[in-house]
């Protein structure tokens, strides 16, 4: 990995980001991943409100929520807040 990254003469000073934050795939920090039981979910969107990373989105055309596993760090707040226990944290 290290050999493919930019060297110290190429990177900007002061750690100035040279990529937008969406380029940093933080989902690989995750240990447990949230799995939604769509049959049990009543679309209350509490998980959408509580997700600190904005990794849960509402899909209006499908009328369901979706987890973006590229950025979900697996904190488990959604599962904790879900009143219907429709989100389970599963070891990856």
């Amino acid at each position, binding site marked *: 990995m290290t050999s493919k*990254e930019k060297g*110290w003469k190429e990177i900007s*000073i*002061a*750690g*100035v*980001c*040279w*990529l937008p*934050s969406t380029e940093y795939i933080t989902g690989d920090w995750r240990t447990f991943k949230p799995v939604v039981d769509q049959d049990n979910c009543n679309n209350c969107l509490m998980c959408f409100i509580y997700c600190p990373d904005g990794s849960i989105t509402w899909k209006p055309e499908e009328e369901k929520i979706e987890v973006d596993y590229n950025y979900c760090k697996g904190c488990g707040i959604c599962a904790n807040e879900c009143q219907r226990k429709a989100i389970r944290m599963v070891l990856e």
Partner: protein
Amino acid sequence: MATITKQEMLALSGDEAIAYAVKQSDVDVIAAYPITPQTIIVERISDYVNNGEMDTEFVCTESEHSAITACLTAAAMGVRTFTSSGSAGLALMHEILYVTSGCRVPVVMAIVNRALSAPLNIHCDHTDSMVERDACWIQIYVENSQEAYDSIIQAFQIAEDPSILLPAMVMLDGFILSHTLENICVLSNEVVQKFVGTRQIPLVRNHEGKLVPFKLDPENPITMGPVSLPNFYLEQKRQQEEAIQESTQIIKKVHNKFAEISGRRYGNGLIESYHLEDADIAIICIGSTAGTVKTVVDQLRARGTKAGLLRIRTYRPFPTQDVIKALGNVKAIAVMDRSHSFGSQGGPIFHEIRHTLYEVPERPYITNYIYGLGGRDMPPSLLYEIYEDLEKILKIKRVENPVRFLGLRE
């Protein structure tokens, strides 16, 4: 070449000289918290701002940690900032000193050196700033209040150089300089303002691949000093090392440029040699003690003793090659440290010098004196003792006790 400009002579204490230099340097934001013996700097600056003599945003903070943070963030927006502290206040800033250099923000700070507690002591030693040796700040130690005035003006030019962008601290000895009146030659406001100019902001590549000014600006947002994981932190620290090593050239250049308008030189800006060319024995020190050593060297020379002095003006970056060259033919050296690295072999300057001389084919004898802690007086009589010790070392051809506490009661 510029010519030496007309100057006015004022009777100022070291603190007042610093405040005066800051007043003339077109500083945009000052955030500071008073601490003895630096208090007069903050008081004078607040007077200047109150009287309309400075067009500066003066922020009274509730602690030194906040003062340096305010300067860091203001300077990150591209303006010129100044703060001042010492002792416990500087220790409280410790965390943010690293953030400042890591964010490559050129804050200028005056440190009025004072011992650290406990026991509580308000007098001079260099422990407070030596603690911050490794924070990637440029460190300039001055011998007298005139040099303090001159060095503050130079520090803005050095720190803000687009190839450097590192914070700089100027150290003066608490009470010995800070509270002692001295005749100071001051340049006119116009000359100083022209010398310091306005801050030049270099370009940096942002997250969209565009080159934008290296400052916090809502029109061209960038992030400075964000989280950096193990795959990049090492490279970022290497960049800082490059910048501080490069700064030796800028320090010399700015020092020369300033000498042209002021007529004042302090060695080559990094080190100052005094009768070293043919010296057999020499003292190495920093700060106001160098003035006393010069007097003693003069008297020893009058008696025919080949004594010399090497004053380190810039401790960071450490001028390794200049030191090696300056010490040339010196046969025995005494390094004087006004601070101590407890549990090690001597003080920080001794470590640095002995380490530097490892490269020299014929190493001189070298010895260390820990002196003046907590403001203990440093009279010429003790300096004569050091030179006598060095002569003895040359005679017996060995160093019997390399680290000693000078003037210690047994």
